C-alpha cells in the first residue's frame, strides 16, 4: 500500500516537533532560562546561537525546543479533551434525539455564543495560572464545533441501511454507536481535531500573553511570540523562530489529518492501491 504525500510530509513534520519536545533536554545547547546572560543579549542567529538570543541573552534554539514540550502537550491534551467531550455529546445527542438532543443543542449554542477565549480566561482566573489549568481551560471550552459535527454525522448515519440492519441483528445502542457510527464519522472528526490542536497552541499563546497561561520564565511558543512582539523590528529572530515552529507544526498536523482521513476510508485506500 502506498501512502499519500500528505501523510508523509505531515507525519515527518509532526515527528520532528514531537522528537524536539521529547529530546529537548539533550538537544538543547543551554538551559531554557537558567543560562541567561545579559552580556549575550540580542545576538542575531549565527554559529554559536543558531536561532540567536533574546533580550536576556537566552538561547532561542534551546527555548524553542523546550517550548515544543509545553505547546504540544497543551495542544494535544486539550484537544483530546475537546474531542472526547464533543464526540460523546454529539454522537449520543444525534443518535438518541429527544430531550437529550435538545439539552446538548442548547449547551452547544451557549458555548458558541460565549467567545471560547473569554470563557477559558474565566476558568483560568478561577484555577490560577499553570500548565494543568491551561489544559483544562482549553479542553473545556472549544468542543462545540466537534459536537456539532458529530451530531450532524450521527443524524445522517443513523438512517443508513447498515445502522438499521445492525438493529435487526440485535446490536445494542452502545455497540451501534461504537462500531457503526463512530468509525464512519471519524474522518472529519480527526481533521477537525488536528486543526483544533493548532488552534489550541494559538489560544495558549494568547492566554500566556495575557499572563494567565504559561508564566515566564518557562518557554512556550506562544509566550515566546508574545514576549518578542516589541522587538519585531529590532530583533525579528525572536518572533520568527517560535512562529516558524508553530507554523510548521500546525501545517504538519493538518497534512497528517488529511492523510489519516484518506487511509481511514477504505474506498480511497483501494483506489490508491
Amino acid at each position, binding site marked *: 500500500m502506498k501512502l499519500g504525500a500528505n501523510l508523509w510530509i505531515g507525519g515527518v513534520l509532526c515527528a520532528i516537533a514531537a522528537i524536539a519536545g521529547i529530546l529537548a533536554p539533550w538537544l538543547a545547547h543551554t538551559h531554557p532560562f537558567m543560562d541567561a546572560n545579559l552580556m549575550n543579549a540580542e545576538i542575531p542567529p549565527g554559529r554559536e546561537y543558531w536561532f540567536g538570543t533574546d533580550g536576556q541573552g537566552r538561547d532561542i534554539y534551546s527555548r524553542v525546543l523546550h517550548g515544543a514540550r509545553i505547546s504540544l502537550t497543551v495542544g494535544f491534551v486539550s484537544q483530546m479533551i475537546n474531542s472526547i467531550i464533543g464526540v460523546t455529546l454529539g454522537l449520543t445527542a444525534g443518535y438518541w434525539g429527544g430531550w437529550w438532543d435538545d439539552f446538548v443543542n442548547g449547551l452547544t449554542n451557549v458555548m458558541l455564543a460565549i467567545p471560547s477565549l473569554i470563557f477559558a480566561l474565566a476558568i483560568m482566573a478561577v484555577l490560577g495560572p499553570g500548565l494543568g489549568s491551561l489544559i483544562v481551560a482549553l479542553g473545556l471550552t472549544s468542543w462545540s464545533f466537534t459536537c456539532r459535527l458529530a451530531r450532524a454525522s450521527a443524524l445522517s448515519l443513523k438512517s*443508513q*441501511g*447498515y445502522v*438499521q*440492519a*445492525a*438493529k*435487526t*441483528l*440485535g*446490536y*445494542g445502542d452502545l*455497540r451501534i454507536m461504537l*462500531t*457503526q457510527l463512530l*468509525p*464512519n464519522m471519524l474522518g472529519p472528526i480527526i481533521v477537525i481535531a488536528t486543526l483544533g490542536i493548532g488552534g489550541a497552541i494559538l489560544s495558549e499563546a494568547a492566554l500566556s500573553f495575557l499572563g494567565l497561561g504559561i508564566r515566564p520564565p518557562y518557554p512556550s511558543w506562544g509566550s515566546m511570540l508574545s514576549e518578542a512582539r516589541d522587538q519585531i523590528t529590532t530583533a525579528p529572530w525572536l518572533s520568527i523562530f517560535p512562529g516558524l515552529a508553530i507554523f510548521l507544526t500546525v501545517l504538519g498536523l493538518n497534512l497528517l489529518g488529511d492523510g489519516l482521513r484518506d487511509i*481511514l*476510508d*477504505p*474506498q480511497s485506500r*483501494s483506489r490508491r492501491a
Partner: protein
Amino acid sequence: MSGTSLLSVENLRLDLTSGGKAHAAVEGVSFDIAKGETFGLVGESGCGKSITALSIMSLLKPPLGIGAGKIRLDGREIQNLGAAETRKLRGKRISMIFQEPMTALNPLSPVGRQIAEMFVLHEGASWKEAERRAVEALVNVRVPAPERRVKDYPHQLSGGMRQRVMIAIALACQPDLLIADEPTTALDVTVQAEILDLMRDLCVARGTAILMISHDLGLVANMCRRVGVMYAGRLVELRPSSDLFRAPSHPYTRGLVASLPRLGTRAANGQRRLQEITGTVPGITAFPPGCRFHPRCTVMTEGCKVTDPSATQLPGGGLVRCHHHG
C-alpha cells in the same frame, strides 16, 4: 395447520399517527408461520408488507406503532418486551435481510468482522473463535476464496456477494425465522435465482422458517408453501401457494395473477392484451369505507361499498376476505 406454530400474528393493527389522529395502516392481519415453513407476503407498494415485518422485529418508529393485536414467538408474546429482551431476539431468533445489499453492510468494516461480530454479540465467542467461524459462514453461503474474502470491505464485493454476506450474517446464529424483505429486488435475474436457491437450501438444512416479503408473485410461488396477499393494510387472501395461483379466490388476487405475463400463452390463445388492475392503492388516510378494494373491483356490488367483508374459510384450506369470492 401442519407443524407447530413458530410465529403467530393475531389481529395486528398498526397505527400511523398524524395530526393527533391514528390511521390504521395495517388492520386485522393474522397469520401463522410453522417451524421451517416458507411463508410469502405479497402486495403492491404501500400495502403494509414491510411495516408488518418491522413490527415483528419491534422496529417500528413513531409515527408508526402497534395499535392492537398480538405477535407471538413460540407462544410467547413479543410485542411488548423490554429493549434488552427484544435485542436478544433480534439476530439470535429472528433475523432480517433487506432489499439493498449495497447499503446494509458497514462500509468501514471488513465483512468477516461483521459476520464475526454476531458470534461475539450473541454467543459470547472470543474474537479469534468468531473470526474462524466467519470463514465457515462464508463457505456456507458459497462465497469463493472465503479466507481472502473475510478481509474484504463491502465495496470490494459485487451485489450478489454482498447479499450472500448479509445472509451469512443473518443466519450466523441459527435463527428460527428469517425475514427477507424483497431480498433480490436489487439483483440481476441470474443472481436472484442463485440467492433464492441459497436461502432455501440453508433454511431447509437448518429448519429456519422464512417470511418472504415481495411484490414478485413468481418468486413467491417458487419459494413459499403458503402465501398471504395484502391489499391496503388488509390480508385479503391467505392460501397454500399452489391453490392461490391455480384458483385465486379474491378478485384482487385474480387480477394480480391475470396480470402476470406467461410464456407460451400467445401460441395457445393467440395475441391478447396483458390484463391490468385499474386504479392505484388508496393512501392510508383515504381508505374507502366497506371493502377497501371495491373502487377497483370488477365484481363490486352495492353491498361492498358499505359492509367490510369478514374472513371466510375456504374449503381447500385458507382464508379470503371478499363478499363475492369465487
